[in-house]
């Protein structure tokens, strides 16, 4: 459906997108994940035709889009803050795209009704958009984008401004909705939870380049680099020298999976891979922080040398701040990271 081919956009000296290649297949939901400033919003604007390219090509359904103006591309875009038209009511917003395509009044009315039902706002057509709650606005924006049946739907931080519970509910709704409609979706977000819940495939971006592509599970289990690992929230990353199945780090010897690349690398130890053992066994540490996380307790540990360590432990018998503990590493929680 969508293919980006060496897309580059520069703002002055800085490359917002640097030779990006990306493909989105029919009926696939792809989520671009990255911190702010990584170029992910620019990516959507390029596809929509709102941002001219410095080089590269955008193809939709195999056709090069250079020279095709925004309104002829047949896409849907849900803006970060929705950008509902304040002068129009809900129905006027949802019908806008249909009106631009010259649909008759009857068609417009029935399609608007259909979509408002679909997004769970039946009968809201006459309401003013200013009177809607955040979640309702989000639904109207979705209905507006979907109304003209776009061949590709793009979402820019679709749930960014909503509160947590609403967000978690809507992600599930969106996922099932897109599955039902067979919509092709390209979304961007900085929220990994959102990306992993929504996407068939996740693309992690950094400074205008793609840092990693894969299914949510692949990316989560095998972050490709220190950047991806840290962006996903993992703190336990150290320089290491691998020889055989052991890595030599500031935390001492850490076991690594068989077949790992040899030599100087960086190693990630997931918190779940940090096991607390007796005070005299393993790496001696002091507990410096202790956070209750519902199903477990997150600990921050200060080893004799090297950076702080994050560990998880059960609710029962979690050591208090100041307590001395010993730490051992389980090979299942260790990932050898690739080059930056």
């Amino acid at each position, binding site marked *: 459906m969508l293919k980006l081919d060496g897309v580059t956009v520069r703002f002055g000296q800085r490359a917002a997108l640097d030779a990006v290649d990306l493909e989105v297949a029919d009926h696939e939901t792809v989520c671009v994940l990255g911190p702010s400033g990584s170029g992910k919003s620019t990516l959507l604007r390029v596809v929509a035709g709102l941002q001219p390219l410095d080089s590269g090509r955008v193809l939709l359904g195999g056709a090069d889009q250079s020279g095709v103006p925004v309104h002829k591309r047949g896409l849907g875009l849900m803006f970060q803050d929705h950008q509902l038209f304040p002068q129009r009511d809900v129905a006027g917003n949802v019908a*806008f795209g249909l009106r631009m395509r010259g649909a008759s009044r009857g068609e417009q009315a029935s399609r608007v009704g259909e979509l408002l039902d679909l997004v769970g706002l039946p009968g809201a057509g006459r309401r003013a958009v200013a009177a809607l709650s955040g979640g309702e606005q989000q639904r109207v924006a979705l209905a507006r984008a979907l109304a003209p049946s776009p061949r590709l739907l793009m979402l820019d931080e679709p749930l960014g401004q909503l509160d947590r519970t609403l967000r978690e509910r809507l992600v599930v709704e969106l996922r099932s909705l897109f599955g039902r409609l067979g919509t092709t979706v390209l979304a961007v977000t900085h929220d990994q939870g959102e990306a992993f819940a929504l996407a068939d495939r996740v693309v992690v971006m950094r400074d205008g380049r793609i840092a990693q592509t894969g299914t949510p599970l692949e990316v989560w289990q095998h972050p490709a680099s220190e950047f991806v690992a840290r962006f996903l929230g993992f703190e336990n990353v150290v320089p290491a020298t691998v020889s055989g199945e052991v890595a030599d780090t500031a935390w001492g010897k850490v076991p690594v999976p068989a077949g790992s690349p040899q030599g100087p690398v960086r190693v990630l130890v997931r918190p779940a891979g940090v096991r607390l053992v007796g005070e005299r066994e393993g790496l001696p540490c002091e507990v410096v922080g202790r956070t209750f996380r519902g199903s477990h307790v997150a600990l921050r540990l200060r080893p004799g040398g090297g950076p702080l360590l994050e560990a998880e432990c059960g609710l029962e018998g979690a050591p208090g701040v100041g307590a001395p503990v010993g730490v051992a590493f389980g090979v299942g929680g260790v990932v050898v990271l690739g080059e930056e």
Partner: protein
Amino acid sequence: MRLGLMALPAVFFAVFFAWPVAAIVGRGLKADGAWQFGRIGEVLGDPDIGHVLWFTTWQALASTALTLLIALPGAYVFARLEFPGKQLLRAVVTVPFVLPTVVVGTAFLALLGRGGLLDQLWGVRLDTTVWAILLAHVFFNYAVVVRTVGGLWSQLDPRQEEAARVLGASRFAAWRTVTLPALGPAVAAAALMVFLFTFTSFGVVQILGGPTFSTLEVEIYRQTAELLDLPTAAVLTMVQFVAVGAILAVHARTVRRRETALKLVDPAQTARRPRGAGQWMLLASVLAVVALLILLPVGVLIERSLDTPDGYGLGYYRALQAAGDNGSFLVPPIEAIWNSLQYALAATVIALVIGGLAAAALTRRGSGRLIRGFDALLMLPLGVSAVTVGFGFLITLDEPPLDLRTSWILVPLAQALVGTPFVVRIMLPVLRAVDGRLREAAAVLGASPLRAWREVDLPLVRRALLVAAGFAFAVSLGEFGATVFIARPDRPTLPVAVARLLGRAGDLNYGQAMALSTILMVVCAVALLVLERIRTDRSGEF
């Protein structure tokens, strides 16, 4: 509390505005102790007066339409395009608005009038046609549209249009369906302001209209000062009062509509470099218009002030230092500069106090009908005949308990009346924007209400206060209609001196008028350019 804040402005307007105007109208319509309402019908039935009314209305409509036509592309360019020198150019196009109408008239006379630039080059004279008046009105009001409409335009989120584009709207359709409706109220508000200013135009028409063209305000002046026909002047004043009241009522409605629902963004993020031939063409044509319509008249004015019979030089400026030998001046015209500066300074202080108090009173929440009425009332001096106010001053403030006839304060009081609406208009949005929770935060941290005001409000409104002061100063400096009546012959202000010089024949007087106008323009322009540096908030109306 609110009543307390409002008391001083209310008394001020009652004594120095309502009373003089009412007194003039009363004197005109009362004979032998009885009201003569029959006069109204008589005056309005007079074909000459009918002609004036007709001309006043259609020239105002034509001026407004022409201003919108020429200035709306400018509003777009200043709002959405980024180009070098934009800040400076924005200040430059605003200069005409604070220029005294007398200077504007003089500049266009130098461009289009007898012996003017076009006359010399091609033998074209427009001062006998209505075009001179219309073009001068566009010159004067260009900034009103660019600021009011452009100010809002630059804060409209460009992504609104992009959202429409992605949904299939062409560039023009997106503008028409999304941007235009959002701008509509601002365009209406600007158009009404332009209509108001041109409907009550005095100095420009007085100078460029000749005997043929006369607006209501000019006619009021003629009837009052030249024909001494007070009844006719009184009726015309009332007609203008009703018309202005109606315009202001509509304006208040559109302004209220504008305050709804739009989500505004930081203007710094909406402008970008021109892209594509269309945008470059637009930029070029706007720059050309600014050059021809704004820079050229100003340039010609300066050129004429230097163009003495002995070649270019400062002869006319030197002549200003001598008392006129033809009896037109009791004092050297140059003294008008110091008179003007002193008067304008005093007027600015008065306008800031009165306008500041009024704005503070209007800011308090829970404002009902009464407050809104007061809001509109404060705008009235902008439109009510300045000539009437000036003449009213003369006949009401001349006996105890308020005998100000010989006092210098009379002139600043009249000028402050015109300056106050600007102060209120500029201060009000800023004062309203101060978040009450900041004050609460200060109070919780231990600040008394007065201390909280000083620590929280004052720093936030200081800029606005400076901008308001600058506008009040410039407007006071240029005030002509009222001042021409009440300035003492030995203490003329700059605009009064210019008008007197223009009223005399001879190259020397003409040249001196140009020189004095140039000085007045420079003072106003400097005041404004200083302001442009301070000013950051562009959401206000002026």
